[in-house]
């Protein structure tokens, strides 16, 4: 029984870029709390291409889930989108009315929520819930048709179609996660957002689901935004990766460049904080301090209180998010040197 790990060369990793399916420009969103406004997302811009998997990585409170619910326009009462544009194909989502957004949600863009296992209603059979979603978006679809579709979806995610008529409590954690993914795929969205889909699952189940997601994505030619705090999972699943910190995007580039030529000090520190089972045992990097309180975030670059490279200008001026190398964006006044060239 051999465990064969192959090391790929740079060429194998860079996939050809296709047309953009989702474009986000200058998205800003904040929450109202008893103590004031929390700046959860601050001028975030990025593009997702067809068939591409974009990983959104960062710690809790960095804004990754906030971006997801902004894209879906599933904001709680106390949240406001202050500015920005979200282009899904040729429709600008923020200008749509609530009724129009209902049409787009699920058919154009769908989401697998965090702790998705809890988003199945325990008193209805799993198949029924997906049929309901289908009939809401395709009113002319008959029940038999919808059920056939659910059967297909189940097979796609690796579930036995017989399980359609079972209740959620009869499913294991991994199976429930798959069911929720099936539900998100039901209306064949162009973009799917997966928010920490495997966090609560064991390593082996996680491995299966990650592989299946990739296969499904390729089959359906979807764009995927994968949100996680686990950099190892993001490395395996994503074509391009965006690193979020305190509501702002710190760095955005393809996986290879991010891991081997990171520009932002936070990215380097984040990667150094994960122990690995491969390679020699090494010291982990510690970041002093804590992620900032977004009620009154630090001025200038939000990372400056913890950054070993911070200087005067980092305290007062916000670094622009710009393209330093082809396809490699970073928001930093003093990015790390790139050793081996772009």
């Amino acid at each position: 029984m051999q465990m064969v790990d192959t090391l790929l060369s740079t060429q194998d990793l860079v996939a050809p870029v296709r047309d953009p399916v989702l474009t986000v420009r200058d998205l800003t969103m904040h929450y109202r709390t008893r103590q004031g406004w929390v700046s959860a997302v601050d001028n975030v811009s990025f593009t997702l291409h067809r068939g591409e998997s974009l990983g959104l990585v960062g710690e809790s409170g960095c804004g990754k889930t906030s971006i997801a619910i902004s894209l879906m326009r599933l904001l709680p009462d106390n949240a406001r989108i202050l500015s920005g544009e979200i282009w899904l194909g040729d429709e600008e989502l923020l200008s749509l009315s609530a009724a129009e957004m209902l049409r787009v949600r699920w058919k154009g863009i769908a989401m697998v929520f965090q702790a998705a296992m809890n988003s199945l209603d325990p008193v209805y059979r799993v198949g029924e819930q997906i049929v309901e979603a289908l009939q809401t978006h395709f009113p002319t679809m008959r029940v038999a048709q919808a059920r056939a579709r659910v059967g297909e979806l189940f097979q796609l995610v690796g579930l036995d179609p017989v399980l359609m008529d079972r209740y959620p409590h009869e499913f294991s954690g991994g199976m429930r996660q798959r069911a929720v993914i099936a539900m998100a795929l039901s209306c064949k969205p162009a973009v799917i957002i997966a928010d920490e889909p495997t966090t609560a699952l064991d390593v082996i189940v996680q491995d299966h689901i990650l592989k299946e997601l990739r296969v499904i994505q390729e089959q359906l030619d979807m764009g995927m935004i994968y949100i996680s705090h686990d950099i190892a999972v993001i490395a395996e699943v994503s074509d391009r990766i965006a690193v979020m910190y305190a509501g702002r995007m710190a760095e955005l580039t393809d996986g290879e460049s991010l891991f081997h030529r990171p520009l932002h000090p936070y990215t380097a520190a984040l990667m150094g904080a994960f122990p690995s089972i491969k390679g020699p045992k090494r010291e982990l990097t510690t970041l002093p301090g804590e992620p900032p309180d977004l009620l009154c975030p630090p001025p200038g670059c939000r990372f400056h209180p913890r950054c070993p490279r911070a200087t005067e200008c980092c305290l007062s001026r916000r670094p622009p998010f710009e393209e330093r190398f082809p396809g490699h964006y970073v928001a930093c006044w003093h990015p790390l040197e790139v050793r081996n060239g772009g």
Partner: protein
Amino acid sequence: MADAMTIQRTPVAEPLWRIRLRLAGKSFANSWQLFRENPIGLIGLGIIVLFGLLSLAHPILMATVWDARTYDPIIGYDAAILSHPSPPSARHLLGTDPIGRDVLSQLMYSARWEFGLGLLAATVSVVLSTTVGAVAAYFGGLVDTIFMRIADVMTMLPFIAILVVLSALFDFQLIHLALVYGILVGFGGQTIVIKSQALTIKVKPYIDAARVAGGGDWHIIFTHMFPNLMPLAFLYMMITVTGAVFIEAALSFFGLLNIRMSWGIMINTAQASGYLLAGPGYLHLMIPAGLAITLFCSAFYLVGRALDEVVNPRLRRR
């Protein structure tokens, strides 16, 4: 190992008890802040303060402005007026009752007894329910079963019938009522609610941590469970006051309590003399007392509701 631990120590300047006092003050100020946000709670509190003032004002008035022979709530008689009950006038702001006593004086006098009754019943019930609930939840098994069956029986018992029987057998005073009501309620439904709260506490890791440190059962119950049950218990105190006062009013109305003056007695007097539904001219005989009971009970209930939001963070609006 002592060597490894020798580091620069910063000695604690203030004595512990003063620090704890300061912390308690800060946490009280915090709760007050939360409580204040809810207008319901403030209204309730306002009414309670009003009644408090009334009960404090009465002895002062009796000692200064009011003449004891005329205004005494129990044995006073106003000979200056010919026909009793008399409607509200300058001398008697709420009029007089069928045997010549000043209604306002009666109202104010009863307030202190209602406070006493309510708070005694509340204390008894809460001490009982917290202790029994915590012990039942913690030990489980046979202890739990026994207490829960007792609680079931207590919940099923018809209060009024029992109190009626007891008052027939004994010389039933307010203090007896307070104790009996407190026990019935404390051992009944309240215990069940507090026990279920105690169960949620029992499975928290900090209880395990206390056990690992070597804490015994009673240490855990007193140091960890009680303080976390206090907010809920306090809430129930408010509700018990409401219940106790209301029950007293009902029993007094039926003449089953051997007490000399209370709001219920006031209505009872009106009824016994046949003036209860005798027409608009006699409303002053029952409306003040009835209103007092309603307001007093509602006030405690409103405070309880507002406290609920302080105690239970999930109920708060963001």
